């Protein structure tokens, strides 16, 4: 580990505080020295409050100012009149000015005190003026890196980089960085994390062009850098399908029922008020659906050398990179409404909780909000490269019965699996375990072997009388609950034993925490 001790008195300004003026090579940020964030960060993070204070003061003063310049005999009794009459106005203004000054000074100091460094082993951030915080995160434990660009920050050419670690509230945030640097820094961090040595890295060519040009080109640049990923690996979301998937969701059905209910209410009671009662609900739900749609525009998933990159957003953009081996389980699900169109949704369990929202306003565990079988197959290729026999998964989407190595529920389990007995089953494929469930609400769960934490075999009294049992695969917590019930008792015991063996072997062979160190 290269340990760069910070020497007191050494000017930190050697690091580029304004990246657009000093387009330093991206590698500078990971040299193990302390660096500062984007100079506009405090403003972007807390400065909105400052603007709001100014706004309130000005709004209150507006009529007063008009009165000064155009005397119309305007009378009111707002606090300013009171201040004016008692003669305290100058003091009051001085007070506001002082508060603003302190705030600005505070922002400046907090920017000076907020710095980060990236060494071969850790990412470290320290911040705070009075209460100092220092957070260190090990690179080989990185679960993913998000870069999000809220609209206003994007105008300033700033981006927020969030390094996901396993656990709750265990993320390292760099808010904000220069936009151009964020992508490079992420690549460099992932390179370091992958176990590649520094010397292997090619020198970066600094970006050319003036500040304004650069800002404009950044803003207009495609969401995904065409050089970052091979185009055949890119999965895009068709806006029409996205719209359709949102329309055919529980939310809109609920909305329709609500409207119908209100109309019926109007006709039966002869009163108009039920209509008003539902207006807030319609506005709320409608707004939610619209934002869901807007957030998912320009959606893409692509394979980059250091993991799967999921990006989306029109005005505020977000993209996250998941290094290999950070997907703990995958669930494909299809509601009855989506079945005629062959649409599927893909969710994953990840070890980290991120504050950033995922596509379609969903949790960021929803990797593919909607896609057809082809999209699903391609995304699975990206997410589960180590699970061989991915055709079995693709077939499992609609297959039924004991085909492709699936073991299904016995006939006597019909009483607990009315419709889905033939579909309810499990299969072991090289590198993973596939659970297939549900005839009406279909879903398929894949758990890669190296990510399994433990396995449980369960049987309650009802199941015992039917000689069936359930097997549950434990992975890190998330939206996916990998449990397969109503399996023949003997099959379940055998499955439990097989999985227990497989987990041990896979855990031993797994090297994905330093994914490039031992190329398999």
């Amino acid at each position: 580990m290269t340990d760069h001790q910070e020497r007191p008195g050494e000017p930190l300004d050697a690091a580029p505080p304004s990246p657009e003026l000093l387009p330093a090579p991206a590698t500078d940020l990971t040299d193990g020295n302390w660096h500062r964030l984007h100079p506009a960060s405090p403003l972007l993070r807390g400065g909105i409050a400052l603007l709001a204070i100014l706004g309130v003061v000005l709004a209150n003063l507006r009529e007063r100012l008009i009165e000064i310049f155009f005397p119309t005999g305007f009378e009111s009794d707002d606090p300013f009149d009171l201040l004016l009459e008692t003669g305290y106005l100058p003091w009051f203004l001085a007070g506001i000015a002082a508060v603003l000054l302190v705030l600005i000074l505070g922002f400046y100091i907090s920017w000076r005190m907020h710095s980060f460094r990236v060494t071969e082993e850790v990412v470290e951030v320290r911040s705070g003026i009075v209460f100092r915080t220092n957070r260190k995160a090990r690179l080989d434990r990185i679960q993913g890196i998000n870069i999000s660009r809220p609209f206003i920050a994007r105008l300033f050419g700033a981006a927020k980089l969030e390094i996901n670690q396993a656990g709750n509230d265990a993320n390292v945030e760099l808010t904000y960085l220069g936009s151009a640097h964020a992508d490079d820094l992420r690549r460099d961090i992932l390179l370091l994390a992958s176990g590649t040595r520094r010397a292997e890295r090619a020198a970066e060519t600094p970006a050319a062009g003036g500040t304004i040009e650069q800002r404009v080109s950044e803003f207009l640049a495609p969401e995904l850098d065409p050089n970052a990923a091979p185009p055949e690996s890119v999965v895009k979301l068709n806006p029409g399908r996205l719209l359709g998937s949102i329309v055919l969701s529980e939310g809109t059905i609920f909305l329709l029922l609500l409207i119908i209910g209100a109309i019926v209410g109007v006709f039966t009671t002869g009163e108009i008020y039920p209509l008003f009662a539902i207006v807030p609900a319609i506005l709320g739900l409608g707004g939610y659906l619209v934002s869901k749609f807007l957030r998912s525009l320009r959606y893409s998933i692509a394979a980059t050398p250091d993991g799967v990159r999921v990006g989306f957003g029109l005005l505020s953009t977000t993209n996250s990179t998941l290094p290999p081996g950070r997907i703990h389980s995958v669930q494909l699900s299809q509601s009855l409404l989506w079945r005629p169109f062959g649409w599927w949704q893909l969710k994953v369990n990840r070890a980290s909780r991120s504050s950033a929202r995922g596509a379609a306003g969903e949790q960021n565990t929803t990797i593919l909000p909607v896609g057809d079988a082809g999209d699903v197959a391609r995304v699975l290729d990206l997410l589960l490269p180590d699970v061989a026999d991915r055709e079995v998964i693709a077939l499992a989407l609609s297959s039924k019965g004991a085909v492709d190595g699936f073991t299904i529920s016995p006939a006597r389990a019909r009483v607990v699996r009315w419709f889905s007995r033939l579909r309810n089953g499990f299969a072991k494929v090289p590198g993973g375990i596939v659970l297939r469930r549900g005839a009406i609400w279909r879903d398929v769960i894949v758990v890669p072997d190296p990510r399994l934490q433990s396995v449980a075999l369960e049987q309650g009294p009802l199941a015992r009388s039917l000689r069936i049992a359930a097997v549950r695969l434990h992975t890190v917590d998330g939206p996916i609950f990998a449990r397969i019930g109503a399996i023949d008792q003997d099959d379940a015991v055998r499955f439990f034993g097989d999985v227990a063996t497989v987990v041990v072997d896979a855990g031993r062979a797994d090297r994905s925490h330093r994914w490039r160190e031992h190329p398999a």
Partner: protein
Amino acid sequence: MTQHLELADVEWRRVSPKLIVAQLIGDGIGAVVMLGLTGLLHVFFPEWRILGIPVAWTVTIIVALATLIPLALTPRRVRAIGYQLRDDDLLFRRGILFQRFVAVPYGRMQLVDINRGPLSRALGLSELKFVTAAAATGVTIPGLPEAEADRLRDELVELAESRRAGL
């Protein structure tokens, strides 16, 4: 007679029978408190009837059954708890009516907890909790003699060290 789930070739290590005492006392206190609460019905609403059924007595009988039956099953429940250290993983079982078997590879261990409540401490017992990255794993071995729990903890940590895996 339906058959319980059983795994082949497993020699279960059982927990201390003293756990029966600890659980009986703990659950017994709970039962007394619950029955005491139903006693309030007898004091304040002794004549209350719904459809001719005396409410106070009905409630008391239901509560008594709900607390005393599990109490009576405690010895069997404790005897059903078992664990085994296999070469590469820890196997754990519990439950008679609701049976549960869990297999956890040592390498998946994140930490081991040892807890002692006041009652267990008086009886010299400890509870060992094996924590992985998945909250659902839920391997908690109660009723281990203190020395045994400490020894098991050290053994588990050592095994986990030698078989370390990522998340």
